[in-house]
């Protein structure tokens, strides 16, 4: 079964800005799905529509099999959500925030008390439970929010920029919580982010969104291979021979030479390094350094987003919005 199914979902705000423009996608049960895009791409608007906080202008979506407009209460019951900005009551303690959530979701007293202890343990906040949230650090607040999102045993957890503004260690810790939830509790996770590493590290599949449109959806590995091969940089003087020899090999795609180094484009970079060293030895070339760079998601991202920004200005989008609203 699909956890999330989206067809032609669109949101046009009153001021004619098309925030989300006919997006379609699906998220499988048990998957971590990353929604990657720059600020203002339409990520938060999409999450708001999927979590029933905003009504779509066009199109539809189903979450846990329930229609977001026709069965909003059923959708709300089966999802947990951690918003981009903290949504805690800082005049209450951590435990009181969880209790508030449990009650407003209608959990019975026994389940409530048991669950509060469980989720606090899961995010490591047991000993801060009775402290007022205003005394929490940014990372603790985010962890409490994740705990709260899990209180009512959701099937799908929405995380809107879960590590925005957090320091490196806290970010790592939150990533571990997220992976753990997915692996051990089987919770489907839909996360938005504009951090490449985050999307790459966590997601099973990634959709890149820009200007309200999904540009590409695939696994991180496939996305990387879309932009090309690994690059091996060889530092050496007197590289003319080496370049000529390498060009003869059928596994080498391209060789570019610079002043004191060569760039060799190949498919399986790690496996080819020994062979390159071998070729150098045979030709009496002294290698000073060797460096392998694999294309990362950033290259993919720039590849797509860079191109799209030039193609599509906000002015033309506005005109398009007016055009199809008139229809």
């Amino acid at each position, binding site marked *: 079964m699909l956890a999330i199914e989206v067809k032609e979902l669109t949101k046009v705000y009153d001021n004619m800005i098309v925030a989300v423009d006919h997006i379609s996608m699906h998220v499988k049960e048990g998957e971590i799905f990353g929604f990657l895009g720059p600020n203002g791409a339409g990520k938060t608007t999409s999450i*708001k529509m999927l*979590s*029933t*906080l*905003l009504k779509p202008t066009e199109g539809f979506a189903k979450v846990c099999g329930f229609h977001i407009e026709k069965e909003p*209460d*059923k959708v*709300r*019951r089966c999802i947990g*959500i951690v*918003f981009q*900005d*903290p*949504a*805690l*009551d*800082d*005049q*209450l303690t951590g435990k*009181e925030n969880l*209790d*508030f*959530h449990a*009650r*407003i*979701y*209608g959990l019975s007293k026994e389940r409530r008390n048991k669950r509060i202890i469980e989720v606090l343990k899961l995010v490591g906040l047991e000993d801060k439970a009775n402290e*007022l949230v205003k005394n929490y650090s940014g990372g603790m607040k985010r962890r409490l929010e994740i705990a*709260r999102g899990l209180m009512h045993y959701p099937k799908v957890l929405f995380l809107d920029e879960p590590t925005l503004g957090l320091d490196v260690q806290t970010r790592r810790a939150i990533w571990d919580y997220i992976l753990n939830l997915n692996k051990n509790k089987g919770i489907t996770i839909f996360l938005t982010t504009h951090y490449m590493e985050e999307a790459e590290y966590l997601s099973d599949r990634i959709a890149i969104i820009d200007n309200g449109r999904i540009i590409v959806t695939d696994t991180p590995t496939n996305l990387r291979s879309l932009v090309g091969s690994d690059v091996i940089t060889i530092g050496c003087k007197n590289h003319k021979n080496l370049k000529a020899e390498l060009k003869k090999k059928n596994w080498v795609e391209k060789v570019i030479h610079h002043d004191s180094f060569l760039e060799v484009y190949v498919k399986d970079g790690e496996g080819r390094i020994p062979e390159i060293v071998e070729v150098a030895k045979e030709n009496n070339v002294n290698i000073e350094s060797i460096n392998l760079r694999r294309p990362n998601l950033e290259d993919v991202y720039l590849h797509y987003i860079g191109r799209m920004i030039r193609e599509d200005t906000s002015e033309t989008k506005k005109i398009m919005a007016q055009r199809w609203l008139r229809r």
Partner: protein
Amino acid sequence: MISANLQAIYVLWIRQIKRFLRAKSRLVANIVQPFFFLMFFGFGFSFIRLDGNLNYIDFLTPGIITMSVVFSSMFAGVSVIWDRQFGFLKEVLVAPVSRLTIVIGQTLGGSTLAILQGLLVLCISMILGAKVNLFGLIPALIFMVLIAFFSVSIGLIIASRLEDFQGFQLIMNLLIFPLIFLSSAFFPIQNVPDWMNIIMLANPLTYAVDGLRGFLIGTFALPIYLDFMIVVLVSLSLMLIGAFAFNRCESG
């Protein structure tokens, strides 16, 4: 389903009580302000004798109770702006409960606090020497509840229209203060210029203060059934508008 909504109402209610008890400065301000009004105005104008040989502090007490209830419950309605700014509103709006449930919880929480404050003002006034008819307390409480519902609803309507607190200050000064001043809280309706008399009779709070004064002090300026009918009518319609206004407000 019903029990889930009752849970939600309960937890929205208890949240307001807890927040109130923890905000120490608000607690102090809410006690000190009516105390000052009662003491300084009450004693300052003690030379005045009103119809029926009434002391000014006796006359003033229902007015200050009303003012206190109005401010406190309006604040509960307007605090939705706060929740929106600090993001907590989203947590409430995304929960599987109806908007009406949220409005009811918010209204009951604010009203409870407002009525407790109203009763506290009553105690203060008695300490300061006001002669209060305690047999009229039950009907007076009904009036206080209606005033509270009325004011929470106004607060919710304001909150659904405003983005921040700057605007709220303006509304306080341009709308709420005139509403209180022209409600016969501080001076009787009989001895004012005609134009002011017309405005006061158009002000629903006038009927609320008059009803409260009638039951607590024993002097009605207007027929009691009129007081009651107008206050019920205005409170109910404002509650409907308030619920509707809140329903329309998205998480922003």
